[in-house]
């Protein structure tokens, strides 16, 4: 653009500013509901988005602000029996919090109901989530899975942001009732995650000061510490401290400060990935209910919560972990997971995309990520590899609905886009039943061009082609209704579900 034109348009830019504000901002209400091992919480936040591109450039909508507008009290997760969550009880808590916050389920645009820690392993976890999904509006996801929880908690606690702001490596330990979720952030990238069955509520203490229940992981830790915990026995500070010391030691092992013992492997949460400790984290961040017990001195009744959380907090504070890696102040401790769930799960697609609007919202769509070789074949026009994989995937997942995840190419030629489009259209014909939409997610910014090239070839099959999204095999995605005059769609990438 020539200089003259820039200054000429600059004047118009000023005049059109009001119009720009009217058309270029949007705000959505997001709800986060977390049903953890020991606590249940609800938060509401407003997520603001804006077209941040220059007036003369192609639009680029991004999230510009996230504001928490309501935080619920921390409720104890109601249980019917040690293996059954009181679904009605949870529902009542959530209903009451909606009312207190002044919102109805219809007000919410997005968000997440997540069931975390030991709660996820309760027999009726899936049913409980189902009961809640109606609460949380049309486009609210229910997610679970130890890895995702780790990342969500690390974002909610502020560890992720610290790693971005200070361009360093941070590690977040979200120590809750049943599990410790660990995530490592390197300048905003998640570089490692994992989960261990270490938490403050693994041993429960009755109001009379007796041991009420001992989880298998706590029993294993007790055994390693050379003490025995028998339900019904008097809760003895020294014995229990020996067990929590052992737990703190296991966390130090997990962080690579001590050589890993066989016990560490034993307490790894089923379904979590193997955690690989970072070389030199600049900061460690503690969140979760136990985090508050690390900071505070152990005063008052150590068993006031009916568990060993305060003891575990003290063990960590006096242990190797706390002394070795400098700690950072967490923005949220006990609320980290719910804040993360409510504010960090929704992302936006690229702003030049193609779709049939009638399809949205789409929920729980499994992701089929093409390997580099498969993608290469697709770019060369070989649909056979692709359709075989799609058919196999449909058979595995029991449904023909899937989202194809591709990397795409930066600055492709039109020929490349057309070849790929033709290949995808043929593969869809071969592998998908008539009328089943073709859903495509790309990393590189080429979705609109690809969508435009595919659409005429689909003969009426609906299409979604979005970009600037990153999804892995095994992920599930929710795609919400288009926002900002249809420029973008909200995307939630999650790792589900119940087996």
């Amino acid at each position, binding site marked *: *653009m*020539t*200089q003259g*034109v820039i200054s*000429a*348009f600059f004047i*118009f830019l000023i*005049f*059109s500013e009001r*119009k720009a504000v009217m*058309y270029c901002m949007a705000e959505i209400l997001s709800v986060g509901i977390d049903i953890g091992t020991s606590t249940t919480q609800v938060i509401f936040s407003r997520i603001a988005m804006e077209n941040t591109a*220059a007036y*003369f*450039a*192609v*639009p680029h909508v991004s999230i510009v602000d996230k504001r928490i507008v309501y935080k619920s009290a921390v409720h104890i997760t109601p249980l019917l029996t040690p293996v059954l969550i009181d679904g009605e009880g949870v529902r009542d808590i959530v209903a009451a919090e909606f009312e207190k916050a002044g919102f109805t389920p219809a007000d919410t645009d997005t968000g997440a109901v997540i069931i975390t820690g030991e709660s996820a392993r309760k027999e009726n976890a899936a049913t409980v989530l189902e009961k809640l999904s109606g609460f949380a509006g049309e486009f609210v996801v229910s997610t679970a899975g130890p890895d995702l929880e780790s990342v969500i908690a690390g974002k909610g606690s502020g560890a992720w942001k610290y790693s971005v702001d200070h*361009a360093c490596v941070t590690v977040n330990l979200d120590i809750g009732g049943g599990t410790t979720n660990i995530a490592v952030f390197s*300048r905003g990238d998640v570089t490692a995650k994992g989960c261990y069955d270490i938490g403050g509520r693994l041993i429960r203490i009755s109001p009379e000061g007796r041991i009420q229940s001992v989880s298998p992981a706590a029993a294993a830790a007790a055994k390693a510490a050379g003490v025995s915990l028998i339900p019904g026995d008097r809760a003895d500070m020294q014995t229990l401290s020996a067990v929590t010391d052992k737990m703190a030691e296991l966390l130090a092992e997990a962080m690579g400060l001590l050589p890993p013992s066989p016990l560490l492997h034993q307490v790894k949460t089923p379904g979590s990935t193997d955690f690989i400790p970072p070389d030199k984290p600049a900061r460690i961040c503690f969140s979760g209910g136990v985090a508050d017990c690390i900071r505070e001195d152990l005063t008052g009744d150590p068993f006031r919560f009916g568990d060993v959380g305060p003891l575990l907090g003290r063990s960590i504070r006096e242990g190797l972990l706390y002394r070795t890696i400098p700690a950072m102040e967490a923005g949220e401790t006990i609320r980290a997971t719910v804040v993360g769930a409510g504010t960090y799960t929704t992302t936006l697609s690229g702003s*030049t995309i*193609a779709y049939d609007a009638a399809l949205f919202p789409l929920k729980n769509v499994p992701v089929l990520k093409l390997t580099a070789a498969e993608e290469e074949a697709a770019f060369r026009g070989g649909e056979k590899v692709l359709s075989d994989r799609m058919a196999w995937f449909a058979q595995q997942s029991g449904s023909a609905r899937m989202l194809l995840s591709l990397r795409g190419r*930066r*600055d*492709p*030629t*039109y020929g490349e*886009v057309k070849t790929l489009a033709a290949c995808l259209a043929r593969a869809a014909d071969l592998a998908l039943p008539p009328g089943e939409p073709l859903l495509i997610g790309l990393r590189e*910014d*080429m*979705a*609109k*061009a690809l*969508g*435009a*090239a595919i*659409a*005429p070839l689909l003969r009426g099959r609906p299409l979604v082609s979005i970009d600037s999204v990153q999804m892995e095999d095994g992920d599930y995605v929710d795609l919400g209704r288009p926002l900002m*005059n249809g420029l973008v769609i909200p995307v939630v990438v999650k790792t589900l579900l119940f087996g």
Partner: protein
Amino acid sequence: MAEPERIAAIVAEVMAQLRRTGSVTLPQNAQPREEGDCDDITSPACRKISLLDHPQDPEALERMRGRTTARIGVGRAGPRLKTRTMLTLRADHAQARDAVFADVNSALPEKLGMFTVETRCGDKNTYLTRPDLGRRLSDKAVETLRQRCTPTPDVQIFASDGLSSTAIEANLEKILPALTDGLKAKGLTVGTPFFLRFGRVAAEDHVAEILGAKVVCVLIGERPGLATAESMSAYIVYNSYVGIPESKRTVVSNIHKDGISAVEAGAYLTEVICKILEQKASGVDLVK
């Protein structure tokens, strides 16, 4: 062992040690240089080399440099730029000048089925010194357009060198078919495309008058800067005439491989042009 071989062995050993300790970084399989050989300082590999001495956090510096094409972290010699920075600046400036002064390879419009016409400038120097002449087509061009172009199309697209022939060579082949196919798929009539030498943006107004097109879109090379010479813009105008206010133009700028890629821009422009036709308005009158 003969003397030269021993020396070579010692040198290799010392270099290997230095590399291990990180005291020096050498390019992989560095070849002994021929006399007169030198690096291409404008190559991506050379641009990556940080010139800042003793950075406190080399990794952070590299990350920051990766996020911008601005010349940051280049260090200095006393109060001045280092020789290498100075030379790179001059090389980039030379590239920018080349982009302005070069001609678009005539094979490119031919390949895309475009014929070539000129404005009233006649040569590059006149083009640069007489913007007014660059806004009007030559008499011969007017005649050619009348003969060879389909009149009164919904959309007339043409390309022009503008201030960067390099931009046209980098992007035209990618964007033109994407845009044309997109518009045709929407059921619009697309005029016969052509290439205009020595063109300014407002030449599109003259084209609109000659052909009676509802919408004219010129794909034109942007004045190159020191960051890229490959940036192209699309200026789109509805119901244009010679002398139309600049505010009536819709602009999509920054079309190049590090901005919006040409093919994706083609798909986006299709949508913008459809909106312009729907609303019968362009520029600031268009509700995006």
